């Protein structure tokens, strides 16, 4: 006779315990990180004129990975001189030839994908599944995509010709080090510019490893130069007189100072800054998939995403349901060693960022929002923060307004579509938004009403090299990717 288990209606809880615990599954491929990296100037690694190096540590366990050269003004100048010298021949190269280099770079990156994924995870703390399945393949995809543009520049804008700008100074952030490098380098090279690139000081390693790919691809010396260092190095990159354009991705605060510094210099500028993205859930949305979208939106890369869906706006009628579904979902989200293939949320990038997250979370609690964190054991060494939900958040709370850049979700409610749009737009940012509803017409109406550069419908964090990415208001200016991104790296000349 089959056993009929009697049920106990009182205990309607799902148990996510350790009956079948996954064994540790650490990625074991070597990352080939050098003990010390110089600056990559004119096709070669050179020692910095400052003779100074700084340590790069892994947020995973706070262990030192490598020593990185600190570039001073003289080093940055050398990089610009090399880039300027290389510009003459690089910009005259036929598009078909530049395309070959880009293709070669993309293929070499694919060949070494595993190695780069491991290095990215060690250096930045993101889960290996993300660097393996997202960062590295997307970086390669951007080079492939722009290789396709390089020989078609004559057809992008009928009646007008695209010409390169010159030497471009590029400063990239620490959240997607390799991918942001690809977003910046690929369009600049496709359009015939040469580059001085500065990675973030906590995550320079994959950029410096990437220099070896440029060497293997036979890219002419000086076309890409990589200088490493912190804010002062960045300022030297921004203020160098040879720069024709500055492309910056990072915080709104630094973006504003760059814009001030460039005022009146005639240098072009694109900025990709912060965000406080509203993810809007209507009552008719497919709730379980919306929950997945919310989880992906805020916990992807530990929330270190400028377009992270950090402000959840839920229609009041389903707010309770969404919150309880989110709490259940958090129980099976695995936080821990980013090198483990089963980790969903990895390490916070740096001590400084961890401190900022802690400060803002404490502020949320003090302001009266309701905190929820699942029971999860965090590694003892390294920088970790548990996935966090704040419910009962009001628009006036700091956690509803400031970009936290961590795995912290603020949940607000709304009653009508108009109120949703109003609350979503009530921010200084305008980068992205998410809309979840089963009603197609509402998606169209909301996407027109939302002041955001990107609106995702019934999905979140979707990226493609062909799709322009960027925001407005304090989220920046200019686009990256697609035809629009390409045009930001070129002058348009009227053809007689």
């Amino acid at each position, binding site marked *: 006779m089959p056993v009929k288990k009697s*049920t106990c209606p*009182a205990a309607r809880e*799902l148990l996510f315990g350790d009956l079948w615990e996954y*064994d540790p*599954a650490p990625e074991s491929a070597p990352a080939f990180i050098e003990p010390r990296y110089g600056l990559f100037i004119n096709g070669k690694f050179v020692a910095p004129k400052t003779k100074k190096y700084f340590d790069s540590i892994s947020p995973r366990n706070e262990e030192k990975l490598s020593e990185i050269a600190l570039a001073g003004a003289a080093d940055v100048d050398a990089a610009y001189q090399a880039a300027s010298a290389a510009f003459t021949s690089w910009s005259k190269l036929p598009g078909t030839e530049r395309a070959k280099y880009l293709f070669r770079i993309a293929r070499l990156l694919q060949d070494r994908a595993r190695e780069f994924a491991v290095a990215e995870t060690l250096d930045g703390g993101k889960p290996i599944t993300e660097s393996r399945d997202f960062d590295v393949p997307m970086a390669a995809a951007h080079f492939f995509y722009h290789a396709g543009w390089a020989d078609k520049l004559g057809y992008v804008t009928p009646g007008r010709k695209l010409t390169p700008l010159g030497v471009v100074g590029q400063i990239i952030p620490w959240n997607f080090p390799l991918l942001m490098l690809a977003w910046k380098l690929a369009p600049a090279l496709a359009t015939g510019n040469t580059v001085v690139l500065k990675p973030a000081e906590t995550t320079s390693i994959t950029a410096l490893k990437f220099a070896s790919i440029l060497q293997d691809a036979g890219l002419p010396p000086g076309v890409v130069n990589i200088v490493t260092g912190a804010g002062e190095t960045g300022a030297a990159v921004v203020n160098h007189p040879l720069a024709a354009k500055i492309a910056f991705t990072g915080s709104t605060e630094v973006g504003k100072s760059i814009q001030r510094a460039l005022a009146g210099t005639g240098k072009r500028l694109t900025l990709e800054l912060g965000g406080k993205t509203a993810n809007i859930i209507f009552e008719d949305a497919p709730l379980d998939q919306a929950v997945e979208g919310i989880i992906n939106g805020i916990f992807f890369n530990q929330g270190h995403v400028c377009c992270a869906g950090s402000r959840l706006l839920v229609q009041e009628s389903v707010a309770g349901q969404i919150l309880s579904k989110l709490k259940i979902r958090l129980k099976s989200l695995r936080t821990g060693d980013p090198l483990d293939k089963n980790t969903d949320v990895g390490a916070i990038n740096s001590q400084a960022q961890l401190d900022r997250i802690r400060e803002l979370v404490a502020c949320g609690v003090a302001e009266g929002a309701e905190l929820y964190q699942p029971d999860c054991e965090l590694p003892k060494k390294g920088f970790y923060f548990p996935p966090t939900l704040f419910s009962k958040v009001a628009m006036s709370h700091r956690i509803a307004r400031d970009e936290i850049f961590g795995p912290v979700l603020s949940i607000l409610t709304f009653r009508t579509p108009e109120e949703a749009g109003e609350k979503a737009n009530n921010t200084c940012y305008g980068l992205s938004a998410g809309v979840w509803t089963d009603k197609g017409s509402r998606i169209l109406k909301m996407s027109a009403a939302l002041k955001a550069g990107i609106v995702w419908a019934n999905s979140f964090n979707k990226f493609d090299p062909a799709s322009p990415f960027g925001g407005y208001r304090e989220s920046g200016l200019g686009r990256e990717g697609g035809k629009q991104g390409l045009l930001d790296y070129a002058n348009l000349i009227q053809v007689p």
Partner: protein
Amino acid sequence: MSTRNFHALRGLLNDVGAVDQVGIDERVAKFATRSIKKNAKVFGLKLAVTMVDLTTLEGKDTPGKIASLCQKALRPHDATDIPPTAAVCVYPSMVKHAAKHLRGTPVKIASVAAAFPSSQTPLRTRIAEVRAAVADGADEIDMVINRGAFLAGELQLVQDEISAVLEACGDRTLKVILETSELETYDNIRAASFLAMRVLRPGDFIKTSTGKTSANATPGNNQVMLEAIRDHFLATGIEIAMKPAGGIRTAKQALHFLVAVKETLGDAWLTNTRYRFGASALLNDLVRQLVKEKTGAYQAPYTFSESSSAY
């Protein structure tokens, strides 16, 4: 189709909520990235063996074939640490032959019944078939819903027929096959899951497929049904069990289905009273992997046949 019936389906969907296909497919793709190694793998493989409903549903089935299938179910391999399967699953005419080998053992006898796989016979015929299978010793009855009625919007009829079969089962476990490939959309699969669950008892199953159509259990429809079971449990406290069937041939697939169970319904469903695999070839791949884990090497391909007709 009458307007009222259309509203019945729409109303049910409004009640139980819609499903987004892209979202489900993304979710299940994540399960497949879980890395199951070492002890976790051995545990998962053994668990999967205990969940197999070892199935033969062929016109050419004979008492002899059933006998060897039953032996295989009781003792999947000469290694004694490999447990028996949950059940064998046979046509009603074979139940009495299976009973000779399985009575008094932990392996249950499941029988498809109620005009499997089409369900296109009069209800009284289907009921009679169920009663006959039960009388011959079936512990579990696998019935398939009236898809024609479902797609015509006759939801009440679908549910009433399930109730009638349930009554004919007596105290035996019922498994309700939705035949997901014929319902086609995830919305329909979710709606049909609720239609069945609302008349089922705790411990009864919902099941994806008959294995007789072109598409059978997929990670996607498995996930839709697991989430329906979870929502029904949280709303009512009734624990419905789940059985994906057809198309799960490899140990790796089975482990990914189990990851979905672990991360959607939790530990309480990681048992063969709550989760089963309707499969035949799967068992030998599970055994193959278990032997590999023990010896460190894959055995020659002919050691474990791919074809269940050679069990």
